[in-house]
C-alpha cells in the first residue's frame, strides 16, 4: 500500500511543505532582487515576482500559487516600493500596480496550475490506458480461466491496490470460484454474487468491511448470457473507480466468453470425431456381418430350391439353414439399429407423407411372416399427412406386426387402428393371444426385456425398445396394454404439426379422358 498509486493523487509531499516552498520561493526572489533595487526598475521587479508565481504554480499547484501571489505583492510593497521597509505607500499609483500585479499573478497562477493538473490527469489516464491495454493483451493470450484470474489480480493490485475474486458461471450449479479467492466471500456475498449474475446489474456497496475496504460486485456480461461475476475489494474513497472497474469487467467477460467458446468448439470437435468413429464402426460391422450372412443365406436358398431337387431331408436342412440365417440377420439388424439409435444422435429424414404408405411397405416387407394372420386396417385413409422418417417408422410397424404375428395364435387377426386427435395421431396395433404379462407391462419397452420372459417364441427383447427410441425421436409416445377384449395392444402417437399446403387439381371437365 506504500507504493505510489496512479489513481491516488500522487503528490510526493504533504501540502504544508508545498505552501512553505511557495513562501520560500517568494523570499528567494526578493532576496536576489534586493541588492539590485537601485539599478532595477520597479516594473522589472514586478516581472520577477510574477515569474516566481508561475513557477510555483507549475511546481506546487493552485493553492500555493495563490499564496505566492499574495506574498509577492506584500514583499514587493515592503521591500521595493518607497517608502521601503514599510507597507505604507506614498504614491497612490502604486496601489494600481499592486492590484494589477495581484490580479495578473492570480490569473497566470490559476491558468498554469490548471494546465499542470490537466497534464497530470492526461498522464495518469494514459498510464491507466496502457495498463488496461496490457491487461487486454494478457487476457487475449490466456489459455485458462486461472490465467485470466492471475492477470486480473495483478492489474487490480498494481493500479488501485484492490483485491479481487473471479467467479465463473458454470451451467446450472451457479457461479464458482476461478483460482484463489482474493476476497473472502461469506454467505451474504455469495447471495449478492448470484443476484448480480441473475440481474446483470453491478452492485457498488459503500459499506466498509472489517479491513476498511468496500466491495464492488460486477457482472461479467457475455454476448449471449451471463458468464459470472467479479468481486473487487478496494479502499472506499474511490468514486471514480466505477468506469475503470466496468472496463475491466468487460475485458474479463470477453476473455471468459472466448475461453468458453473455445471449450465448446473443442468439445464439439471431439464429439463429431467420436460420432464419426462410432458410425463408421457400425457401418463396417454391418457390412462385415451381412456379407457372410448373405452368402450363407443365398447358398442355402440355392440348395433348397435346386433343380432337380435334393433328397427331401437335405432340402429341409438347407431350408432350415436358410431360415436360421435370415433370423440371425434380423437379430443383427435389430442390434445394429439399437446401437445406432442409442448412440444418441439419430439423423431423422423427416418428410410429410401418408401413414398408409409405410404401413403398406412394412406389410409387404414382412410378407410370409404374416401369412397366418389376416391384417385388418381401419381409419388410415382419413389421417392427415404426418412428418416422419419413413424408414424408421416402417421399422416400428414391422416390429409391431412381427411381434403380433409371433405371439398371437395362428388365424387370429391383427388389427391396425388409427385415431386423429387435436395434437397427435394415435396408431394402435392389436392382436389376439395372452397379451403381455401384467406385471411386466411397464418394462416391455426396456432393452432386453420381454413381454413374456418364459415364452417359447424366440426373441431378444430389442424390437419394442427400438420402437420406443424411434417414436421418442419423433416426439411421440408409446405404450403397451392388454385391451379388455383380450390380446395385446401397442399404441404410439406422432405429432400432427402443420402439414404443407397442397395445390389441388381439378378433374378435367369431360369425364374419363384427361
Amino acid at each position, binding site marked *: 500500500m506504500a507504493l505510489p498509486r496512479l489513481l491516488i493523487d500522487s503528490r510526493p509531499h504533504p501540502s504544508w511543505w508545498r505552501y512553505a516552498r511557495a513562501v520560500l520561493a517568494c523570499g528567494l526572489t526578493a532576496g536576489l532582487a534586493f541588492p539590485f533595487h537601485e539599478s532595477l526598475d520597479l516594473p522589472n521587479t514586478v516581472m520577477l515576482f510574477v515569474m516566481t508565481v508561475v513557477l510555483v504554480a507549475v511546481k506546487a499547484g493552485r493553492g500555493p500559487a495563490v499564496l505566492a501571489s499574495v506574498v509577492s505583492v506584500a514583499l514587493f510593497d515592503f521591500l521595493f516600493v518607497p517608502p521601503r521597509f514599510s507597507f505604507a505607500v506614498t504614491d497612490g499609483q502604486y496601489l494600481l500596480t499592486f492590484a494589477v500585479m495581484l490580479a495578473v499573478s492570480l490569473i497566470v497562477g490559476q491558468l498554469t496550475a490548471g494546465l499542470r493538473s490537466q497534464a497530470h490527469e492526461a498522464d495518469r489516464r494514459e498510464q491507466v490506458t496502457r495498463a488496461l491495454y496490457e491487461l487486454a493483451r494478457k487476457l487475449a493470450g490466456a489459455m485458462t480461466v486461472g490465467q485470466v484470474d492471475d492477470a486480473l489480480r495483478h492489474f487490480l493490485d498494481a493500479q488501485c491496490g484492490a483485491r479481487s475474486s473471479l467467479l465463473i458461471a458454470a451451467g446450472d450449479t451457479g457461479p464458482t470460484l476461478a483460482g484463489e479467492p482474493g476476497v473472502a466471500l461469506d454467505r451474504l456475498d455469495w447471495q449478492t454474487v448470484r443476484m448480480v449474475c441473475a440481474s446483470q446489474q453491478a452492485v457498488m456497496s459503500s459499506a466498509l468491511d472489517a479491513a476498511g475496504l468496500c466491495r464492488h460486485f460486477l457482472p461479467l456480461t457475455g454476448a449471449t448470457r451471463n458468464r459470472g461475476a467479479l468481486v473487487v475489494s478496494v479502499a472506499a474513497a474511490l468514486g471514480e473507480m466505477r468506469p475503470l472497474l466496468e472496463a475491466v469487467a468487460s475485458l474479463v467477460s470477453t476473455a471468459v466468453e472466448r475461453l468458453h467458446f473455445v471449450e465448446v468448439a473443442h468439445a464439439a470437435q471431439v464429439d463429431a470425431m467420436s460420432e464419426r468413429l462410432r458410425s463408421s464402426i457400425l*457401418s463396417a460391422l454391418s457390412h462385415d456381418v451381412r456379407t457372410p450372412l448373405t452368402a450363407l443365406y443365398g447358398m442355402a436358398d440355392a440348395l433348397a*430350391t435346386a433343380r432337380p431337387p435334393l433328397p427331401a431331408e437335405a432340402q429341409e436342412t438347407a431350408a432350415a439353414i436358410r431360415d436360421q440365417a435370415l433370423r440371425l440377420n434380423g437379430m443383427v439388424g435389430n442390434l445394429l439399429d439399437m446401437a445406432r439409435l442409442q448412440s444418441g444422435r439419430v439423423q431423422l*429424414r423427416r418428410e410429410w407423407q401418408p401413414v398408409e404408405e409405410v404401413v403398406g411397405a412394412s406389410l*409387404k416387407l414382412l410378407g410370409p411372416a404374416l401369412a397366418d394372420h389376416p391384417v385388418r386396417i381401419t381409419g388410415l385413409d382419413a389421417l392427415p399427412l404426418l412428418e416422419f422418417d419413413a424408414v424408421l417408422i416402417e421399422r416400428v410397424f414391422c416390429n409391431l406386426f412381427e411381434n403380433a404375428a409371433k405371439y398371437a395364435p395362428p388365424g387370429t387377426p391383427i388389427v391396425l387402428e388409427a385415431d386423429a386427435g387435436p395434437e397427435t395421431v394415435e396408431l394402435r396395433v392389436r392382436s389376439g393371444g395372452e397379451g403381455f404379462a401384467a406385471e411386466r407391462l411397464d418394462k416391455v419397452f426396456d432393452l432386453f426385456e420381454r413381454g413374456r420372459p418364459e415364452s417359447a417364441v424366440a426373441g431378444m427383447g430389442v424390437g419394442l425398445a427400438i420402437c420406443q427410441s424411434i417414436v421418442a425421436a419423433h416426439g411421440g409416445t408409446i405404450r403397451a396394454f392388454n385391451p379388455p377384449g383380450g390380446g395385446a395392444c401397442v399404441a404410439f402417437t406422432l405429432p400432427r404439426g402443420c402439414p404443407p399446403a397442397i395445390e389441388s*387439381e381439378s378433374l*378435367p371437365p369431360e369425364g374419363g379422358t384427361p
Partner: protein
Amino acid sequence: MNKPLILIVEDEQQIRRFVRSALEREGLRVGEAATRREGLIEAGRGKPDLVVLDLGLPDGDGAAFVEDFRTWSSAPVLVLSARSTENDKIDVLDAGADDYLTKPFAVGELLARVRALLRRGRSNPESEAARVAFGDVEVDFSRRQVSRRGEPVKLTPIEYRLLGLLIANAGKVMTHRQLLREVWGPAYSDSSHYLRIYVGHLRHKLEDDAAQPRHFLTETGVGYRFQL
C-alpha cells in the same frame, strides 16, 4: 439368339459363386469382376446385357461405376446393397441404376428381378404399347382412357402423367426425385409430399386395397416401383 450375358461385379467370392450358379441354371451366360475397375474393363469387353453390381466395392462406390457405364451402355443395372442407408441407394439409382436388392436376398427374388430387367431391356418399345393391362385395370394410351373392371376411371392430368411414367418404367425403381422432376418439373424436386399424395390417389383409384398395394409399390425412403 445368343444367350444374354450377365456381368457380376461383387468383391465377395462366395456371393459371386452362388449368384453365378443361380444365373447359369437359368440358362444365362455369366461374367465376373471383383472390383470397379475390373468391372468396367469386363463390361467394355463383353458388352453385357445386364450388370449385377455390389454397392460396397473396395475401390469406389457403385454410383461412380453406373455413371461411367451409362456413358456408353443402356443395359439394365441391378444393384446389390448391403448398406442400410437409403442415400446410397438413391445415389446409385439417380446415377442410372434400374433396381436394387437388399442383402441378404433369396435366389428366387434375384432371378425374378433379373428376368424382369432383361425383358425390359430387350423389348423397350413394349412400354410404348398403346394398351397396357395390370390387375383389373386397362390403360389405353392412344385414347387416353383408363378403365377398371370395364368402368372408366377419372384421372386428373397429373395422375395420368404419373401413371404413364410409372408404366413406362415398370419393374424399375424410380426415385422420388426422378418422378418429381418428370411429372412436376425440376422446381418441385424437393416437394416429395406431392408425389406421395398423387401415388396415394392412384392407389385409391386403381388398387383393390390402397393400404396393401400390388402394383404401386413403395420402396421406403427411396421411391416407387410399378409392377405390372
